[in-house]
């Protein structure tokens, strides 16, 4: 136990998981995450629990990226969905074989393994992320946010353009093949496309989380935060703020693009208008909601936030459709039916939650953790 209190080397002090207790819980958590698809096989509506989990993992990856950009580097971006879209189409093109639809439209495709698609989606998104550069260098705060909003509309315009049809399928979207693992060991573990996608999304999310943690605690993360808090002072003490901003856009777009590649798989037929216009803006805003509700500027916060924003509305809906919530009209009655009720409830939930806990779930978690740390001598 002494080890838990005293750290004798800097190496140990700076380790991500400095003690055995934390290692223990981490391993429990990981084991549970990998066991999850097997666990839910026995539940009613396993498909629901699996899709929700996949969406949460994909969203968490995207949110981790946005959190580095907005939470750490302070560049609030409304254009995140654009990079998800780039990832979806590029990733889809890379991991799907070329094909021709029945109506004779040719699609490009490389038929590579899923992770190549993920990397390619990330790389292309990162490259495009840097185009925001000139604006990011000159603009600040909400002005920059609203300029990144342009990406949402630019994205819709590009993704639905007939000229890019071999990649995006223009207005009709493109087909994206499922993820597959050609590993015999996993035969009983991955029995369905959905489980394969879950595994891929889990691996990606874990990698993104680790990378996010490392970036946050390294010189890069510090430079991001310095840029966010006081950019002039940061520059004076030796931080190249332009570099920091571009790196932040690059890294965050990379994660968005990688997440987008799997989102494309999830959607099966990603469509330009999913990633642009009003629908796209809502997605961007959802990502901002994730990092704010999770706790802005904290790496775990992004994950909490993804869980809250993606899973909660579905769970409320699930609950009200199961009839667990009272006083609701039947679906489609055009009044307070489960769907409308869930939407109102979710809206109010955000309001109430942020009033009570403006620092987000991370703030809540922080307080709980401190409470338990001190237990039984809390306060």
């Amino acid at each position: 136990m002494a080890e838990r209190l005293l750290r004798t080397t800097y190496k140990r002090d700076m380790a991500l998981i400095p003690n055995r207790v934390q290692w223990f819980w981490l391993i429990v958590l990981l084991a549970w995450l990998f066991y999850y698809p097997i666990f839910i096989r026995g539940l009613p509506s396993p498909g629901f629990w699996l899709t929700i989990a996949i969406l949460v993992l994909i969203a968490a990856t995207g949110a981790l990226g946005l959190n580095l950009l907005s939470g750490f580097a302070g560049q609030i971006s409304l254009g995140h969905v654009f990079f998800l879209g780039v990832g979806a189409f590029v990733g889809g093109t890379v991991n799907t074989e070329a094909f021709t639809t029945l109506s004779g439209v040719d699609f490009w495709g490389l038929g590579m393994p899923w992770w190549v698609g993920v990397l390619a989606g990330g790389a292309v998104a990162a490259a495009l992320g840097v185009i925001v550069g000139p604006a990011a260098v000159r603009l600040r705060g909400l002005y920059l946010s609203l300029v990144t909003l342009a990406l949402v509309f630019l994205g819709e315009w590009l993704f639905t353009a007939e000229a890019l049809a071999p990649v995006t399928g223009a207005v009709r979207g493109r087909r994206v093949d499922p993820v597959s693992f050609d590993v015999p060991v996993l035969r009983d573990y991955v029995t369905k496309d959905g489980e394969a996608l879950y595994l891929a999304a889990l691996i990606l999310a874990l990698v993104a989380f680790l990378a996010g943690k490392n970036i946050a605690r390294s010189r890069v993360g510090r430079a991001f935060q310095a840029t966010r808090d006081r950019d002039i002072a940061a520059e004076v003490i030796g931080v190249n703020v332009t570099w920091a901003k571009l790196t932040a856009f690059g890294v965050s777009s990379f994660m968005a693009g990688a997440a987008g590649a799997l989102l494309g798989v999830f959607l099966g037929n990603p469509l330009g208008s999913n990633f642009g216009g009003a629908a796209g803006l809502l997605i961007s805003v959802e990502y901002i909601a994730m990092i704010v509700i999770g706790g802005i500027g904290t790496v775990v916060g992004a994950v909490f936030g993804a869980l809250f924003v993606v899973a909660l509305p579905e769970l409320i809906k699930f609950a009200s459709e199961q009839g667990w919530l009272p006083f609701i009209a039947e679906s489609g009655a055009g009044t307070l039916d489960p769907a409308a009720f869930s939407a109102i409830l979710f809206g109010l939930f955000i309001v109430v939650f942020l009033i009570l806990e403006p620092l987000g779930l991370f703030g809540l978690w922080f307080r709980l953790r401190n409470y338990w740390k001190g237990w039984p001598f809390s306060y």
Partner: protein
Amino acid sequence: MAVVSGLILEFDDVHLSFAGINALDGVSFTVDEGELFAIIGPNGAGKTSIFNCLNGVYRPDRGHIRFKGEDIIGKKPYKIAESGMARTFQNIELFGNMTVLDNLMLGRHHLFSSSWLAASIWLGKARREEIENRRRVEEIIDFLEIEQYRRYPVALLPYGIQKRVELGRAMAMEPSLLLLDEPVAGMNLEETEDMARFILDIREELGISMILVDHDMGLVMDIAERIMVLDFGVNIATGTPAEIQADENVIRAYLGEELTA
């Protein structure tokens, strides 16, 4: 690099103006290697503006600034920082959400060379660098006696400690010229004494040249070797503390009768 013997800084006929205000109107001075040079003057005289010109935050309209023999006008602030100029600020410019450790590590940002990709994997060089720089930062923390605050977000620390952390951050940059903008403003006597001690020790132990700006005449007169007095962007006197204290112009424009009495 052509180092003019003994001079670390030459500030030569610098003019700077903002929408009709002449903040600096042809100011010249030099700082010797290892010297503790002070700049004083009434509020709005242009002291902070001189620092901002040195750092590359402001670009003078006219004039030359040579640091270690190299003209630095037009260079980016971070480049100037890399070449060895560090600074504390009149209004504390620490990163309030970050811990003392992180603030100090930030001072060493330019001493790293690993890429963001390496950082995200935290292997090899990236990790080695983090650990090595951490070691140096701990030395500074020991020196400034702020061990107990190491992991506190700086925003929670008392004002006097924050000022000390800011000094630590500047030290962490391994500078050859240190600019101190009102390091003891708002401090009580005890803290001022501590700060004076640190400044003197830094100079003695590390031999770093310094430019000190402050309105605490006790401090300035006690520790500065040479003082320049600025009024409305014009250099009205330069000399030793004793000379300055006796200067009629300086008394009229800045010191007032009481202090010298």
